[in-house]
C-alpha cells in the first residue's frame, strides 16, 4: 500500500499536507500523533470515504484515487474498524457479520454463518451471536467489529483508534484481541495512542503531525529514542498521562 503526496483540506483547514507512506505486504504499521494531525483522514482516504484534493493512493496495483476505480472492489478487500459505533444496532451480532458477507461478497447464508462463528470464536464472543450490539459493552462491540473485519479475509486491515472511545477498564480486552490478530500476517495500519501496544506489535511506528510524516522507524527507535523534537514532546505528553493512570501495568495480558 502506498500513499504519495496526499493533500486534503476542509475549507480553510489543511489536514493533510503532502503526506507519503509506504507499507509493505504483511507489515504492521502503527500511526501515532496528536488529534487533528490527519490520521483518521488518512485512513478514510485509503478506502475512498474521503476524497483527497491531491496525491495518490495505491493498494497492490490499484490506484484508489483514480475516479474510474470501483471503490466497492477496494473496500471488499480492506477491513476497517472505526473508533466507535461500528455495529448496526438493529441487527444481532451474527447478522452484523453475515450481512456484508452475504450482500457484498455473495457468500451463501450458511457459509457466512460458519465464517461468522469462526471469527467470533477468535475474539472470544461466540456466546454473544444472538445479542444485539447495545446489549454488549463497548469493548465487546469493538471486538465484534474486529471479527467482522476479519470475516472478509482482508488484504489490508485499518483500525482508527479502536480503543480511544472506551472506558479504561475495557481497553485491554480489545488490545488483547488486536495483538492476536496482528500475528495472522495481515498487513495492518493501526492508529492508536496505546504506546505499549505499539511497542509490542508494530514493525514500524509512524509519527504524524501537522498533516505530514514527521518521523518513522522501528518502535524501539521512534518510541524509545525519537530524533525529532515534536515526537519527543508528543510522547512525553502521552506517557505523562499514562503515569497518572497506571492501567497499562495493572493488568498483564495473558
Amino acid at each position: 500500500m502506498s500513499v504519495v503526496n496526499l493533500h486534503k483540506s476542509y475549507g480553510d483547514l489543511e489536514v493533510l499536507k503532502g503526506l507519503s507512506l509506504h507499507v509493505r505486504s504483511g507489515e504492521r504499521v502503527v500511526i501515532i500523533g496528536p488529534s487533528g494531525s490527519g490520521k483518521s483522514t488518512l485512513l478514510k482516504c485509503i478506502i475512498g470515504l474521503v476524497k483527497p484534493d491531491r496525491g495518490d493512493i495505491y493498494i497492490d496495483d490499484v490506484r484508489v484515487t483514480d475516479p474510474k476505480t470501483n471503490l466497492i472492489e477496494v473496500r471488499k478487500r480492506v477491513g476497517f474498524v472505526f473508533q466507535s459505533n461500528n455495529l448496526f444496532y438493529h441487527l444481532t451480532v451474527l447478522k452484523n457479520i453475515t450481512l456484508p458477507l452475504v450482500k457484498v461478497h455473495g457468500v451463501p447464508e450458511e457459509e457466512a454463518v460458519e465464517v461468522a462463528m469462526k471469527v467470533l470464536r477468535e475474539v472470544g464472543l461466540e456466546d454473544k451471536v444472538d445479542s444485539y450490539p447495545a446489549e454488549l459493552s463497548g469493548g465487546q462491540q469493538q471486538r465484534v467489529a474486529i471479527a467482522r473485519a476479519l470475516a472478509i479475509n482482508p488484504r489490508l486491515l485499518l483500525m482508527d483508534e479502536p480503543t480511544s472511545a472506551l472506558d479504561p477498564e475495557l481497553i485491554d480486552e480489545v488490545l488483547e484481541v488486536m495483538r492476536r490478530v496482528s500475528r495472522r500476517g495481515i498487513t495492518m495500519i493501526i492508529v492508536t495512542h496505546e504506546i505499549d501496544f505499539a511497542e509490542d506489535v508494530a514493525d514500524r511506528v509512524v509519527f504524524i503531525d501537522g498533516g505530514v510524516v514527521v518521523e518513522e522507524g522501528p518502535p524501539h527507535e521512534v518510541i524509545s529514542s525519537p530524533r525529532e523534537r515534536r515526537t519527543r514532546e508528543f510522547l512525553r505528553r502521552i506517557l505523562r498521562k499514562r503515569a497518572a493512570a497506571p492501567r497499562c501495568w495493572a493488568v498483564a495480558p495473558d
Partner: protein
Amino acid sequence: MIFLDLLPEVVKFMISIAPFLLRGLINTLRIGLLSFAMGFGLGIVTGVLRVSKSKAASAVAATYVEVIRGTPLLVQLLFAYFGLPFIGIRLPPSIVSVLVIGLNSGAYQAEIVRSGIQSIPQEQLDVARSLGMRESQVMRYVVLPQALRNIIPALVNEFVALIKESSLASVIGEIELTRCGEYIISRTFRPFEVFFLVALFYFTVCYALSRLSGLLEKRVRIPGYFRAYR
C-alpha cells in the same frame, strides 16, 4: 330533566341508525387504509429521493412535497373531481378520494421518512460504505430499517390524521362516515344523535390505532436501541 326523559328514545334511535353508519365507517376505513398505504409507498420513495445526492431527484421530490403541502386537501379533492374532467380525466369519487388523499399523505409521510433518515448518524453510513455496500444497500439494509422503527409514532399520527381528514371526501359525494351521517340527517332531521355517533365512531377507530401503535413499537423494538447512540 327533559334530556334524561328523552334518553331511552335517543339511544334507541342511535342503535337503529348504527348499521347504516357502520357501512360509512367501513368505507372510511377502506379509504384510510388504501390511501395510507399509497402514501407510505410514495413517502418512502420521495423521502429517499429527497436526501439523495442527485440534485434533480431531490428537486422533484421537494416540489411534490411543497405543492401538496401548500394547498388545502379540500381544494385538491375538488380540483381532481370537478376540475380534471375538463381535460378528460373522469373518475368515480371512490377512486378520486383514495388517489387524492394518498397523494396528499405521501407528501407528509415523505417528510417524516426524511427526518427518520437524517436521524441516523453519519457514522453508520460510513461503516456501511466501508464494508463495500452500494448506496442503495446502505439505504436498504442499514438506514431504512433503523429510520422506520424510529418514525412509527409519527406515521401512526399521520394515519390518525388521515382517517379524520378523509371526511373531506364527502364533498365529492363519496359516502364515507361523515357523508353517511349527513344523509341520515337529511332523512330524519336528528343532527344531535347522528353527529354524536359519527364522532364516536371516528374516536373509536383513532383510539384503537394509537393503542395498536404502542403494540407495534413494542414488537419491533431492539433491545437497548435507544441508549445505543451516545
